[in-house]
């Protein structure tokens, strides 16, 4: 019983009595494919203890739509199990450790960034090729937080507002202003909806995977497979090439026409294909993006992807081992990026598969992320015992998960000769067989001379 109370006490959030949010300014961006919320939060510590950790709560209705959250001024983030919040508020708690603590009678302004996907609900559900896409966005009027909020103001940035349910809001062209609200209790929620125009295609990857094959003959082969789906408003009626003029940018604005990917600068042999074969509508160039040397790939799907439509494609490329594989005697270290190359999208599920050369042993993987790991063997060209393969699975994956994965393994120098010896043996066997067969005496009757 005592233990139970102790656990209960240990798990509950330690919110200091005189620690609260004095001001919060939220800016919700509803102009893009995904929703980005930037909040400037001013924490006030009127207590006596310095505060090092702050908590962020997310309601379970939204927790699977949140693909990334961070606080600029923090250096550690973790999900904590809190029974009280979990069952009373139906929410998940993130704990952020601040870079420097908030001293008593001091305040600190932090920047909270929330990234959501799948937040828009198409309304109407079906539209024509030439129509605008209207969507509904549902949100809470108050910031969902375990802290008391003294003052809150929220801005919604849109392309065009059709209507909104909260009548006290002020509209300034494309901007909707909620508040300011004073003295909001912790965990306050009040649902409101905004009906707005958003013509960006609501595409997500339902599945993405990256397959890596490392060869000690100097190549790293990478193949990425994507399953894409447009979850926006469905296309009304039949699709016709006459209505859909691909050279007119005002038609089919809500369909996905183009994607971009960025590959490492030294990648070569890039291919873009699907089940049918090569997709010729792609462009590649080497250049600088965000101050980084990259190979930029412009991909256009085989057809514009309208609401409710799905498509699959494959993007593959090769990398030299020089930059990604390091050696120290028999020890090898492989450094790879975790996430996929189509950086603008979020995937529901992601599978990352790394095959090391046959004969690699003592494999260690350094994982900076929460992923599920399974190991298997891959049988490909000239394989006898199978290549050791690491399979990493993750649910919602985005570019924020693009962390470096370091794999260390041992590989003896003789193992590289396995395949050449196999080919040599085959040829030698064939020659020896010919020599032997040509010397056989199969005549049963000897001819007399």
């Amino acid at each position, binding site marked *: 019983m005592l233990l139970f109370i102790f656990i209960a006490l240990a798990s509950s959030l330690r919110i200091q009595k005189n620690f609260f949010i004095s001001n919060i300014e939220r800016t919700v961006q509803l102009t893009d494919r995904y929703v980005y919320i930037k909040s400037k939060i001013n924490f006030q510590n009127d207590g006596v203890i310095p505060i090092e950790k702050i908590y962020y709560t997310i309601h379970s209705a939204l927790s699977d739509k949140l693909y990334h959250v961070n606080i600029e001024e923090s250096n550690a983030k973790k999900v904590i199990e809190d029974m009280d919040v979990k069952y009373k508020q139906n929410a998940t708690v993130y704990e952020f450790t601040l870079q420097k603590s908030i001293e008593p009678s001091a305040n600190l302004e932090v920047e909270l960034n929330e990234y959501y996907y799948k937040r828009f609900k198409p309304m109407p559900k079906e539209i024509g090729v030439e129509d605008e896409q209207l969507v509904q966005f549902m949100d809470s009027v108050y910031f969902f937080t375990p802290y008391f909020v003294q003052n809150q103001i929220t801005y919604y940035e849109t392309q065009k507002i059709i209507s909104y349910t909260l009548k006290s809001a002020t509209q300034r062209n494309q901007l909707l202003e909620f508040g300011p609200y004073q003295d909001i209790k912790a965990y306050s929620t009040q649902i409101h909806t905004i009906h707005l125009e958003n013509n960006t295609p609501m595409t997500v990857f339902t599945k993405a995977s990256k397959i890596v094959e490392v060869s000690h*003959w100097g190549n790293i082969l990478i193949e990425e497979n994507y399953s894409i789906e447009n979850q926006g408003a469905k296309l009304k009626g039949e699709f016709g090439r006459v209505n859909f003029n691909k050279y007119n940018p005002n038609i089919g604005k809500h369909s996905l026409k183009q994607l971009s990917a960025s590959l490492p600068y030294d990648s070569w042999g890039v291919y873009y294909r699907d089940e049918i074969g090569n997709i010729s509508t792609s462009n590649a160039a080497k250049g600088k993006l965000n101050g980084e040397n990259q190979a930029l790939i412009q991909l256009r799907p085989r057809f514009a992807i309208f609401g409710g439509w799905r498509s699959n494609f494959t993007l593959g490329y090769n990398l030299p081992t020089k930059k990604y594989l*390091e*050696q*120290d005697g028999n020890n090898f270290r492989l450094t790879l990026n975790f996430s996929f190359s189509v950086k603008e999208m979020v995937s529901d599920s992601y599978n990352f598969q790394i095959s090391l050369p046959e004969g690699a042993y003592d494999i260690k993987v350094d994982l900076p992320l929460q992923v599920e790991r399974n190991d298997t063997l891959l049988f490909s060209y000239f394989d006898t015992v199978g290549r050791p393969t690491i399979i990493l699975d993750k649910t919602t994956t985005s570019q924020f998960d693009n962390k470096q994965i370091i794999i260390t393994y041992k590989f003896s120098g003789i193992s590289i000769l396995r395949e050449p010896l196999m080919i040599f043996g085959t040829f030698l066997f064939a*020659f020896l067989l010919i*020599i032997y067969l040509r010397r056989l005496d199969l005549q049963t009757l000897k001819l007399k001379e």
Partner: protein
Amino acid sequence: MGYQAYSPPIDTKHYSNLAIVLTFIGFCFLSYFVIYQITQNKQQRSLTKELSVGLFASLFLSSGTLFSFLALGLYF
């Protein structure tokens, strides 16, 4: 000794040339082997010559095949 960038035993840019040259030499040995098999009868052939030509032919043909695979982008 710390970790150093790994480079393969043979530079990847030489693969296609190696494939052509080694396969060509291999074919020369193979043709000599075939000619020797056909022109000489069983009693005239020497086993050491057959074996040595066969060995060299398989050596060059196998390395030629190996580098052809690598040059074609079929890494193992």
